[in-house]
């Protein structure tokens, strides 16, 4: 496994270089004039343009700009926005919030999703199973912004149980409802995946063997059926974790949470190219690392998979 991990870590380098180059090119290389509209209706003053051009190496070809940017990244310098904020400061403020939100969402996915899947998978056809199937289908078919707005309207405005806008440095508790909304779609997937996988495994020969050995129902279900059924579920949750970190733009928007998703959104809106590139580069790294962890975890969960 050691050599495999090393090989995978080395593979991350070209993937990271490739993705950042593409992002950098899309953000900087495609616009003719990065100063267009920057200073309202007027042209930007020449000294301002000169300072910025020098700071952002705008006179160099895009590829050279990108290399210089990467050099900065290596020393932890994410660059500065036009308005003068250090991008690294923006990220340092937003990342913990996004991380907490993703954590809440993942916990919701695991606890509610797997429990629902377990209950409906074990009971088989019946009232509970139908209820879970219909409600998960309902969640899957609704876009997150609809779920989010409805939840905010009902729980926040009508009932007044939650604050409609999350405070700047929110606690896990403040993020509970937004996390629920963010995780709802994946939670429904997890429930269905667990259910199907469990039903498939419940007819497996090795489950029959476990019963024939005289093990208790609890042991048969948890150690033999569920343990084996969770392999595809863990893979899904792992991949989803990366998406939850950066893909929470809509949920963050609805509940006014200042996380990474919002940072990308405002960056695009205000044409803060440095901000967009910085955050996206970070998200790429997170995504790659999470994927690597999932692949390694997969081998732990299923001993038939060996990487060496």
């Amino acid at each position: 496994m050691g050599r495999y991990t090393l090989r995978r870590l080395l593979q991350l380098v070209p993937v990271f270089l490739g993705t950042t180059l593409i992002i950098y090119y899309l953000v900087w290389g495609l616009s003719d004039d990065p100063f267009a509209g920057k200073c309202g209706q007027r042209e930007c003053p020449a000294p301002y343009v000169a300072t910025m051009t020098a700071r952002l190496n705008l006179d160099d070809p895009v590829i050279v700009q990108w290399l210089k940017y990467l050099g900065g990244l290596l020393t932890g310098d994410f660059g500065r926005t036009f308005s003068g904020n250090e991008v690294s400061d923006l990220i340092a403020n937003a990342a913990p919030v996004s991380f907490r939100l993703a954590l809440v969402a993942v916990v919701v996915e695991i606890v509610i999703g797997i429990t629902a899947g377990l209950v409906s998978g074990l009971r088989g056809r019946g009232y509970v199973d139908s209820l879970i199937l219909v409600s998960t289908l309902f969640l899957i078919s609704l876009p997150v912004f609809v779920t989010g707005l409805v939840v905010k309207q009902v729980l926040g405005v009508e009932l007044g149980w939650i604050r409609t806008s999350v405070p700047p440095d929110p606690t896990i508790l403040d993020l509970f409802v937004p996390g629920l909304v963010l995780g709802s779609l994946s939670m429904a997937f997890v429930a269905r995946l667990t259910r199907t996988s469990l039903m498939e495994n419940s007819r497996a020969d090795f489950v029959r063997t476990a019963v024939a050995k005289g093990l208790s129902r609890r042991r048969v279900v948890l150690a033999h059926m569920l343990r084996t059924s969770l392999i595809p579920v863990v893979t899904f949750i792992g991949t989803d974790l990366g998406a939850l970190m950066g893909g929470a733009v809509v949920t963050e928007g609805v509940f006014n949470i200042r996380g990474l998703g919002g940072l990308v959104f405002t960056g695009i809106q205000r044409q803060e190219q440095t901000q967009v590139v910085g955050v996206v580069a970070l998200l790429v790294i997170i995504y790659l690392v999470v994927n690597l962890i999932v692949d390694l975890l997969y081998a732990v969960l299923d001993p038939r998979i060996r990487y060496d």
Partner: protein
Amino acid sequence: MTDAAPLLEVEDLRVEFGKGADTASVLNGVSYRVEAGETLAVLGESGSGKSVTAQTIMGILDTPPGRITGGAVRFKGEELLGADRERRRLLRGESMAMIFQDALSALNPVYTVGAQIAEQFRFRRGMSKKDAMVRAAELLDQVKIPNAKQRVKEYPHQFSGGMRQRAMIAMSLALDPELLIADEPTTALDVTVQAQIMELLDELRRERDMGMILITHDLGVVAEVADRIAVMYAGRIVEEADAATLYAHPAHPYTRGLMASVPRLDSSRGQLDPIPGLPPSLTNIPPGCPFHPRCAHADFRGRAPQSSVSGDRCRTELPLLRVLEDPAAGPEGHRAACHFAEQFVAASPEEVLTP
């Protein structure tokens, strides 16, 4: 009956699958008994109900779709059908254990072989994980797996087919059962390994004085280890006798058919005689003798001029399992469910009866 209750007694067991018009009568009154230290071989084609009987005995039949509609299963005189679920669970492993056909799918792929054996010591005997693994290694050693201390930590997919079946046997013996049900234990293995596994099973049975039910469709496997043989067809026992008697004077055309379909090196004819046709659909078992559509003898026997019976007795009257007058049979007797069993017993097994 003055004897103590037999180790296992199955009486008139009936099991159905499905509902309404699609109801399949899988078992239609199966009766057999196994004594301690004895091997009963249950022979028959796929779908004859061999495995369903075994699963019903073990209490692992899936209900639904299965449904036990009648009969009794007694273990040392204790009625098991309708017994408390927890009581039945405690009997599994401890009093009766089962070996399955395909050890690769019957073992859980995500746990080590040792852990799966140790599981029984941990959760049925309350042993610590460490002690249980030591016992698991001892068991692997007993079933002659070389290097047991190392292999106990390996996963099923790292074992060869024969070794997996040995591990499966070790697992079934963990709690010292008195009855071992082996459901086609050698079908998935190649011939040389088959013989080794059968030898091992026979040896372990003798050492532990276990009763054994050996389910198979392989007559060669049976000949070497079985004390008694029960032949099943369409959810019924059609013939039962001690092994020597059954081989010497098979009394049911189906048994004779099974024997004729085994390749033999000393056969002068140089070709196999498979039983024509297919086993009957269990949703629609033929009236009369269930075997009559495939029976080479049903026609002429049915209208044999010297016979006093009516023209198509095989098609209309279900032959019951009855004790035959067979002077060569052992103390257990020779039973068969064929209207003309006596005439078959008198003939030699290879003799082809023609009008």
